[in-house]
């Protein structure tokens, strides 16, 4: 039997509420900047929450109008981040039948769906755009990227709400490991800042209502946290088989060494307070990567700033990592980016790759009073240096429906 195929990261791309690309986003993250703002749309004051985290650079600033009019906003994000990541990977020459795309979205083209429904009601069926279906389908972002790069090994879209982005990267990792492909463009995107999804999340009491200070609203682990801040954008990683990357002299950021997937079987939206699903996912991920808890030095938490979720996750981390949790620097970057739903696990994976590269854990901002129920080592206010040598870092992502995804990133010598 041949040796296990290894998977490395060779390119990064992102468009987020704090930067138009991966490097400006990372710089803003280390500087502790918030992307949350009061919305200026007319509808913003018709719903209980009037702020969100829009992308720092609108797609109209970097794409042609004619291209954009056939794309849902989530599809534009996918193309922007994928083009950046592909270029960052050195625009590799790849056999198209060995090139895949796995890009997720939590909700798909929801603004297209709602806007075209308005057209239908106001102007009739004949005026509905012929691009409505390709724009609203959740696999649209992956499909457009697949078309642009002529990927023929498979184009996929896992959908698991806010775990979708991480699940996509895990799926891509498996595709390379299982020898279905050598290179995969993988990640997640979301563009759901619209009155209806926001009213829906507000009805669940999931959104922060801190309208007087949007940039202070997303405060994971703070005693006064009151919900998440909706964000938009996306992140993309180029995953590549290790020997393939080495043979072409690619810059190798780090390795993806394993993943753990579980489900709660508990509630459609509430986290399992025992966090047993999260604990099992961490255990499976570490075993899959062949590492132990003591190898883990950093974790990008799901931590969305909801009262129940943050503590349930922190408890699960403490139980899964045991005493080793004392040397794991935990960062909750949604305090700055807001919650990108299906894009979250993807941009947070980009952050983990940058953290391993720069040996720096990003801060968690807005913690005025740390919730005493949180017993993990949270990186507060300022970035924290990570150790040199061989290190591993984890991405935790969970989604409504009880989906748990944990990815293991490892430094490569």
């Amino acid at each position, binding site marked *: 039997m041949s040796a296990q195929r290894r998977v490395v990261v060779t390119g990064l791309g992102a468009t987020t509420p704090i930067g138009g690309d991966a490097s400006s986003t990372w710089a803003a993250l280390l500087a502790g900047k918030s992307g949350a703002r009061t919305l200026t749309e007319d509808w913003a004051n018709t719903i209980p929450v009037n702020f969100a985290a829009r992308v720092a650079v609108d797609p109209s600033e970097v794409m042609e109008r*004619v291209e954009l009019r*056939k794309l849902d906003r989530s599809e534009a994000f996918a193309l922007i981040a994928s083009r950046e990541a592909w270029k960052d990977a050195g625009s590799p020459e790849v056999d198209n039948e060995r090139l895949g795309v796995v890009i997720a979205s939590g909700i798909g083209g929801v603004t297209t769906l709602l806007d075209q429904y308005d057209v239908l009601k106001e102007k009739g069926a004949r*005026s509905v755009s012929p691009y409505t279906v390709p724009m609203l389908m959740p696999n649209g972002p992956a499909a457009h990227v697949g078309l642009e790069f002529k990927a023929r090994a498979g184009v996929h879209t896992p959908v698991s709400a806010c775990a979708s982005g991480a699940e996509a990267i895990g799926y891509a990792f498996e595709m390379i490991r299982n020898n279905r492909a050598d290179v995969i463009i993988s990640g997640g995107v979301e563009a759901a800042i619209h009155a209806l999804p926001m009213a829906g999340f507000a009805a669940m009491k999931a959104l922060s209502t801190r309208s007087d200070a949007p940039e202070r609203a997303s405060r994971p682990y703070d005693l006064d946290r009151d919900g998440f801040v909706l964000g938009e954008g996306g992140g993309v990683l180029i995953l590549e088989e290790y020997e393939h990357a080495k043979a072409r002299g690619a810059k190798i950021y780090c390795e993806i060494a394993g993943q753990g997937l579980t489900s709660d079987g508990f509630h459609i939206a509430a986290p399992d307070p025992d966090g047993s699903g999260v604990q099992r996912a961490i255990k499976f991920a570490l075993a899959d990567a062949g590492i132990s808890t003591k190898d883990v030095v950093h974790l990008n938490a799901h931590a969305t700033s909801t009262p129940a979720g943050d503590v349930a996750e922190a408890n699960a981390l403490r139980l899964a990592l045991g005493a080793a949790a004392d040397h794991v620097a935990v960062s909750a970057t949604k305090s700055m980016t807001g919650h990108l739903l299906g894009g979250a696990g993807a941009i947070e994976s980009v952050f983990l790759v940058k953290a391993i590269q720069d040996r720096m854990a990003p801060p968690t901002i807005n913690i005025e009073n740390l919730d005493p129920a949180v017993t993990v080592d949270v990186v507060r206010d300022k970035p924290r240096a990570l150790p040199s040598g061989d290190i591993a870092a984890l991405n935790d992502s969970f989604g409504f429906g009880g989906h748990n995804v944990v990815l293991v990133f490892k430094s490569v010598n």
Partner: protein
Amino acid sequence: MALTQADVLAGLKEIVEEVAGIPAASIELDKNFSDDLEVDSLSMVEVVVASEERFGVKIPDDQVTELKTVGDAVDFIVKASA
């Protein structure tokens, strides 16, 4: 009142530029929508609906496939407006 060929061509140029991003100056009567102007079947639906709105005519779906060139569309719209 019937529209003139010049009126319709000028209007159609604006529509195709809007939908497909082709500069109006390069849109001529003999240009084929799909081969020359990259107007695919979905974009053609947009061109048709925008033309109906602009010129106040009806372009039945079974006629759309007959409109291969800009000239075909101009002729159809001029006749339909008469």
